[in-house]
Structures are given as C-alpha cells and as structure tokens.
C-alpha cells in the first residue's frame, strides 16, 4: 500500500457521503440517480476496505478525523456540515466494518439524508441508527446532555442515609428462626412451544393498525365528557386523529369515525354544543389541509380502495371542490390524478359551477381533466362552457371537448364537430369528431355522416378514416341503415377501383357489427370476390354474425 492511499480513500468516502445526502433527498427511490448513488457509495467503501478492514471516523464539532488525519472540515454550524450534523446529536465516533452489507449502508444513508431540521420528527440520527440495529456500523455516542449530575449524588445520598445496623441482623437471625416466612410455593410452568405459538400470534396481532382503537378511546372520552370546553377539546383530538389517518392513507378508519359522528349529530337528544363541535370536524375533513395530505399520500405511489374513497367522499361538501381542483395541478402521478378526477366527478354535482372554473386553468392537463370530470358528471349545462372553449389552441383539449360535446350535446354542437371532420391537421381530432357524431346519435348526426360518405371526396380518404365512419354508422341498427349498407356493399364498378372496394369492405365491417342476418347472402357473395380486402372483411363479418347468433341462441 502506498503511503496515504487509505487516507485518499477515506476522503472519497466522505465526499460520497455528502453527495449521497443530497441525492437521496432530491430523488425518489425509483430514480436511477438514487440507485446509482447507493451503488457508488458502496463501491467507495469497498475501495477503502481494500486497505483496511475497518473505517473509524472520529467526529469533532467542525472536523472529522481518520486516526490523526483530518479528512473533513467545515466551520459553518449548518445542517449540510457533515461533522456538525453528527456531532450535534452526540455522535463522537463512527466505524464501518468490512462486512457491512449494501442494505446496511443504504439504511445508514437514508438516515443521514433525512431533513431533521424541517421535518417533524421525534428522532435524531442516534435513535434511528439504533432502530436500524446495524451489525457492522458501530457508533460511540455521548449523551451527557440528558444528565443532571447532581441528581444521582443526591438520590444516592438519600437512600444510603440509613446504614443497616449490625444488631438488626442479630435480631433477624434470632427471630427468623422461629417466625420467618417459609419458601413460597410458586408453581412455575416452563414456557413451552405452545406458549411461543400464542406469543407469535400476539405479536402478529400487535402489528395491526392501531388507529381504530385510538379512535374508540377518543369516543369513550367523548361519551364521558360533559362541558362544552371538553367537547371542543375532543373535537381537536378527532381532528388530530383524522389528520394522522389521512396522512397514512387510512381511509377506512377516517370514514368509520365520520359515520359515527354523523350518527351522533343526527340524534335529537344531542346538544347544540356537541353538534357544533362535530360540524367543525366535518369542516376540517373537507379542508384544504386534509385534502392536500390526501394528495401527498396518493402521489407517493400508495393505492387506495376506490369504494373506501367513495365512502369518504360522501362526507365531503361542495367546499372541498376547489382544493381537489388545485390538487390536479399539483400531483405528479397518474394514479393520484385519476383518483382526484374520480373524486371530482362524485363531488362535482354539489357545485357544478365551481368545477367549470377549472376550464380556465393555465395548465392544459388540468383543463383536460376538468372536461373529463364534466363529462362524467353528465350535466348538460357543461355544453355552454365547452362551446366557449372549443377553439382552444391545444389539440389535446380540443379532442376532449369534442368527445364531451358528443356525449352531452344537442344540435348546437353539430357545427363545431363538423368543422373538426374537415380538419386534416390532426387525425385524432377527426376520429374523435366522427365518434362524437355517433355519441350524439341524433338524426342530424346520421345525416352528416351519410352525407360525408356519399361525397365524392370520401373515396380518397385513408382507409382507417373510412372504416371509422362505417364503424360509427353501425350504431344505427334500423332497416334503412341495413339497406343502405347492403347497397354500398354490393356497389358494382366498371373498372376495378380499389377505393370502391375499400368502401364495400367497410360496409361489410359495419354489417358485421350490426349483426344483420339478412346481410349474410350478400356477404357470402362478397366472401368469394377476388378482391382480397372485400373477401377478408366479408369473411370476418359472417363469422361475427354467426357467432353472435349462436350466443343469443
């Protein structure tokens, strides 16, 4: 080993620890940088263990020493000062042994990356190191800050003030010979395997959530309370418990409390003072604070049971809508956004107008989400608001509007939809417009579709677009439509025009979707046609019609 190589290696380790603290705070666990930081840190330690089997760091207020060698110095008493960070919690020595596992180092780095200054934690580095029960990371701690030196001396003096008089023992000796207690018969049953099984069961049970029990205790205290001050205090306890439950995604427990409180609230014998306090709890549940906590929980990758969420939302009032709408622009995960959208669809009918305000959001994705919510709510009043936005420059929003107009709309929406049918710049928009006409299901919409198909220009459209038109036509299953489609199917041409064959194939497709048995002879004929496209589409349609008839018996 060259002189000082181990020191260089220690400095690399320290540098890596500082980097790891930053990266682990900044990046989520699934980010590659996070994983790389852990790997790099482990490699740095391994590099050191090439020289020595143990790395001992001595911590001073502003310095870290490796033996006599200063390996880190920073004179600022701030959290990013590694020496100060360890020293302030009483750590005086840290040692890493060669057998330290990757998992141990990861746990160690996670602890030192916590933001102790800004997070509400009852822990410091020492208690968290302790809880991790490291096998190959040791530390020396000074916890003199807990001590009151004078206390020990005083207490010892007090209990030692009466020394046992030797005569006392003589007396005991004499008297105990005749009066002493005999040995107590204690039936000790040795602990057996069955006891251990019971114990394991107990420990398993103990690992279950405690929130419900905690809530029950608050209810018990509530039942025993009498004054309005007590009720007000207990309402605060409930709020604290709800806050904790939401933070931990315990939706079921929160709903249970709210159901019980609702029941109490609906009891005529309950005083106004109690009812008033219960109302404050419901108000709290629907507050921005709680909704944002719920958002944080959802955004951290946790899943919730949709039915539990639905049950919880039933206790929210219209005041919760703006906070949920704000969440849409705050959340990162698709899952969390989906949950919030579903929540808004449930809450929206309580204050439809507020939901429509979301259409003015500067973020395109929020607008799109709100349009989705409006569609889910299904209130026809949304059409007016959507028509105002139909020329939105963002095509993603335009698509969502056209789709929703199709589902909610009336004759007023036809014009903007037709306009989109002509828009060649965005194929998705065109497709959405075709489907929107189908969703409208109106006579006018049908006419528009048939007119489009009859137009000369239709022949030259892309096959997929044609197919979409015929797909939508299959929504109308009346005789007139069947006749029309058979007519298109059997249309003869003097020349072998491939574009006409495309139309015929699409008509076969549509007849298959309708399930028209009367079309079977025509389709069979086309099945034998030399044109491959018509032949294949007719074949598929026949199979589909037969399959559907078999299913329906």
């Amino acid at each position, binding site marked *: 080993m060259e002189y000082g190589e181990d020191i260089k290696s220690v400095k690399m380790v320290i540098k890596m620890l500082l980097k790891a603290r930053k990266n682990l705070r900044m990046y989520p666990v699934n980010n590659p940088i996070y994983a790389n930081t852990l790997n790099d840190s482990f490699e740095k330690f391994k590099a050191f263990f090439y020289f020595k089997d143990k790395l001992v760091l001595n911590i001073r207020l502003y310095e870290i020493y490796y033996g006599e060698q200063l390996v880190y110095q920073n004179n600022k008493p701030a959290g990013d000062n590694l020496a100060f960070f360890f020293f302030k919690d009483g750590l005086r020595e840290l040692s890493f042994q060669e057998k330290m596992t990757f998992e141990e180092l990861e746990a160690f780095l996670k602890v030192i990356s916590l933001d102790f200054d800004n997070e509400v934690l009852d822990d410091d580095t020492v208690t968290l190191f302790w809880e991790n029960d490291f096998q190959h990371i040791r530390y020396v701690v000074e916890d003199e800050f807990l001590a009151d030196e004078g206390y020990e001396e005083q207490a*010892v003096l007090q209990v030692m003030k009466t020394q046992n008089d030797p005569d006392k023992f003589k007396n005991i000796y004499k008297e105990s010979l005749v009066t002493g207690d005999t040995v107590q018969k204690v039936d000790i049953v040795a602990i057996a395997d069955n006891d251990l099984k019971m114990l394991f069961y107990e420990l398993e049970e103990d690992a279950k959530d405690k929130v419900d029990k905690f809530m029950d205790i608050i209810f018990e205290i509530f039942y025993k309370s009498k004054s309005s001050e007590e009720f007000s205090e207990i309402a605060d306890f409930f709020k604290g418990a709800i806050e904790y439950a939401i933070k931990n995604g315990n939706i079921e427990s929160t709903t249970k409390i709210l159901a019980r409180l609702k029941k109490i609230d609906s009891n005529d014998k309950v005083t106004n003072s109690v009812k008033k306090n219960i109302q404050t709890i419901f108000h709290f549940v629907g507050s921005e604070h709680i909704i944002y906590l719920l958002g944080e929980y959802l955004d951290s990758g946790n899943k919730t049971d949709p039915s539990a969420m639905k049950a919880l939302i039933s206790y929210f009032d219209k005041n919760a809508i703006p906070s949920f709408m704000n969440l849409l622009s705050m959340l990162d995960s698709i899952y969390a956004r989906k949950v919030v959208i579903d929540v808004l669809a449930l809450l929206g009918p309580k204050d439809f107008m507020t939901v429509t305000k979301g259409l003015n959001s500067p973020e395109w994705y929020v607008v799109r989400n709100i349009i989705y919510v409006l569609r889910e709510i299904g209130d026809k009043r949304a059409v007016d608001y959507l028509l105002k936005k139909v020329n939105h420059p963002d095509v993603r929003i335009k698509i969502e509007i056209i789709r929703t107009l199709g589902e909610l709309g009336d004759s007023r929406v036809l014009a903007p939809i037709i306009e989109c049918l002509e828009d060649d710049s965005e194929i998705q928009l065109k497709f959405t417009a075709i489907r929107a006409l189908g969703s409208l299901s109106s006579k006018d919409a049908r006419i528009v579709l048939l007119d489009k198909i009859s137009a000369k220009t239709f022949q030259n459209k892309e096959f997929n677009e044609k197919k979409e038109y015929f797909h939508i036509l299959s929504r109308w299953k009346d005789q007139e439509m069947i006749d029309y489609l058979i007519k298109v199917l059997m249309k003869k041409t003097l020349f072998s025009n491939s574009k006409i064959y495309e139309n015929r194939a699409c008509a076969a497709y549509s007849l298959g979707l309708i399930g028209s048995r009367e079309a079977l002879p025509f389709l069979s004929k086309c099945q034998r046609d030399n044109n491959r496209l018509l032949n294949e589409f007719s074949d598929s349609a026949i199979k589909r019609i037969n399959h559907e008839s078999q299913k329906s018996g």
Partner: protein
Amino acid sequence: MKAKNQADSPKTKRDLINQLAVLLRSAEIHHVKNIVVGKAVNNFVFQVNEFIKNEGDFILELRGDFFFVNEFRIRYSSEIMINFDYLVKLFRTLMVGTVIIKSGAETNEIISLTDAFVNAPKINPFEIISRKISHINSIAVYELKKIVEEDLLDARKMVKKSYFKAVSFTQGVMNRIQQGETVALKKAKRMIVSLVDRIIDQEQLLLGMSSIKDYDEYTYHHCVNVSILSIALGQRLGLNMKQLTELGMVSLFHDIGKLDIPSRILNKTGELTEEEWQVIQRHPIEGVRFLLKMKHVDFILIRSAIVAFEHHMFYNHTGYPTVKKSHPLDLYSRIVTLADQYDAMTSARVYSRIPMSPDKALNLMIKQSGSQLDPLLLQFFINMVGIYPVGTLVVLDSMELGLVYESNPGFVNRPRILIIADGEGNKVDAFPSDLVDKNDEGNYRRTIVRTLDVSKWDINIAEYLV
C-alpha cells in the same frame, strides 16, 4: 457484493445455537446413535460447516448470561428462548465456557462432543468432557470463566448512572408537561434508547436498581421502573429495537394523567372518599388528554394514549375506566399493567406504607393470573425475574442471610445473591454467591430455605444494590 452475507447475519448465529441445543436435547432423550440424534447431528454439521466457510472457526462462548458467537452477542428473544435457556443451564452445570469448532469438523466428532456433554458426570464435569474430546483436533472446549469483579463494578457504575439519568430526566419532563411547556420528545427517546441499550446488556443490574424503593420522588422512579420492567419483558418477548424503544416511551408516560391529580388526594394518607377515588380513577382519561395536547398525533402518541388509557383495565375487562365498547387489551397495555402492578406492590406508596416483598408480590400476581393479568405474559415475567426477584431477602440452609441481586437464567429458584450476614447473624461485608454453584460432591453449596420481608425487618437494600 449486494447479497447479504448469510453466515454473518444474527439469524444464522441464532440458528446455530438453536441447532446445537436441539442436538443436545435429543441426545439427552435418545442414544447418540439413534436416528433422531443422527438427523440433528447431520443438520448441525451442515450448518456449522457452512458457517465456518464464511466466518472461519465457530466460537461459542458463554459470558455471564449471554452467548457470544464469534464475539457477536446473541440477543435474547422468544424465538430461541427455550433452547437458549437450556444451553445456558447446561453450560453452567457442566462448567463449560467456550466451545470452538474448527474447519473440517466431521459427523463422528460432533457425535463425540454430544456424547461427552450429555453423559458428563456431576463431579468435575468439565474435566471429563475435556479429556473425552482431547483427541479431536477440530473441537476444543474451555472452562467457564467467572465474571471479574472489577468488570461487574464498572457495569454497576454505568447502570447506576443510566438509571438516575433516566429518573432525573423524567422528573424534568413531567414538570415541564405539568407547567404546560412544550417537551422535545427527541431527548426522551434518546434517554429510552440509552436505557434499552443498558437493559440489553445489564438487565439484571437495572432490575436491581428498580428494586430500591426508598427514594423521595416515588412518581418519577415509578415511571422509570415501569419502563425498565416493561422493556426487559419486551426483550424476553422478542420485540425488536424499534418496538423496545416504543414500549419504553409508552411505559414512561403511562401515568402522565396523574400530573393533574391534586396533591392533597395523591398524598392523602387516610382512606380516600368516593369522590377522591373517582378523581384517581380518571387519570387514564386525563393521561390521554395530556398526551394529545402535548404533541401531534403519530404512532408513538397513539400507542402511548392506548397504554395510558388501558393500564388499569384488566385482562378480564374489569378495572377502570369503564367503557361502552370493550376491545381486547393492547399488548403493550398488558405488559405495562404487569410492570406497573409489580412495581407498585413492591413500593411504599402513600396509601400503602408497607411495601410487599418481591416474592410475595409475585405470588399475589400469580393469583391474579387470568383474571387481572395476562397469564402468558405473566409466565414470561416470572421467567425474567425468577421466583425470588431482585431485592428479595432470603435465609439460606447455611443460616446465612442473603439478598437476591440477580436472577439466574434457567434456574428460577437459584438466583445470585449477596451474603449480607453469616450463619450466626453477624453482618458481613457483602459478597456474591451463585446458588447454582456446587461443591466437590456435586451438591449445591447453598439453597434458599425461607424468605423474609425487607420492610418488616427494616433492611435498607440500597446499601447493597446501589
């Protein structure tokens, strides 16, 4: 390199101890050539050789009450409890301190070791075992070493410091809470961590400290004592470090509701009126109130509130406070109830000036098993404190007077004692005696014949235990 080194894990070491115990226990029942023993031998040989591949030699050493495998202390837990106790008892009886198994140990060599252990004579067992296996190169045994008195003294000093630090800290915290000040629970947690650490290392010495009841500030000592007893019991039940810390915290605050009880009631020497008794009975509810006002709701607070509320509710759902909807009691509540009752019974409190001797208290608790107290937990508790808990004054068959200062794992009725008076009643400089020790004829040197009531005879046990 990311994979965990299996041999180095504490579980592998515990499993090896377990397997060795299984082997020796089966050999006590069957002949060493029996198929059952053969299977146990094969398992052990396989496991130990796997271990040796990664770790070098397998060195199993009994130091005090703990096993060390390759200098790594094996923590006491319910998983290995039965076999652990068995092995401690066996090593002590045979006077074996260390067993070393080196690379290449073969099945027949392990059979020889097993045979030497289970067929060792009562007299000079170690010598005979040593002689029997002297021809085996891959196995060595060494005699059990007595703990050096100076080491014990150092340990005592440390334990004393930790104990008083905990009491003084608790007093400070409780005073601040009472005055409505904000309390940093980080420090309380640090104190508990330090206490748990000490309990893991020196459980019996700390139990000894908790057995002294003559302090002025009963309340604070009681909080710390309950915490010590709860953590020690939790350790026996196999709780992990995090759980032990939680248990330590919740037990420390179990009586926080008493802070609001007027001192005229709390310190009343006469009978309490019905009204006063009702105030006392409200302290579990007040405890929840204090806790919930003290800090934001988190897991520790929830557990603390549950224990504060339930620690006077009994196993059979009697006790107080009465509730509308009854639930099974929380595990921590049942642990704290045991610790609380034991410490309260053995202390001189305002309303009960004469404390019960530890063994009598234990007897009363046994009577309450299944009604007031959880029978399973009580069983573990007795296993921990022994039939003669620390602080019990005993008369020996030698007519010497002794004071129990440590229980003895595996020997519930043979604790370690301090001889404080000779066979004629003369006070002597206290010296330790392990009641497991035998004379040259293989008989126990000393045996307890009766117990005495410390308070009745006004013996200040602090003279010996502090």
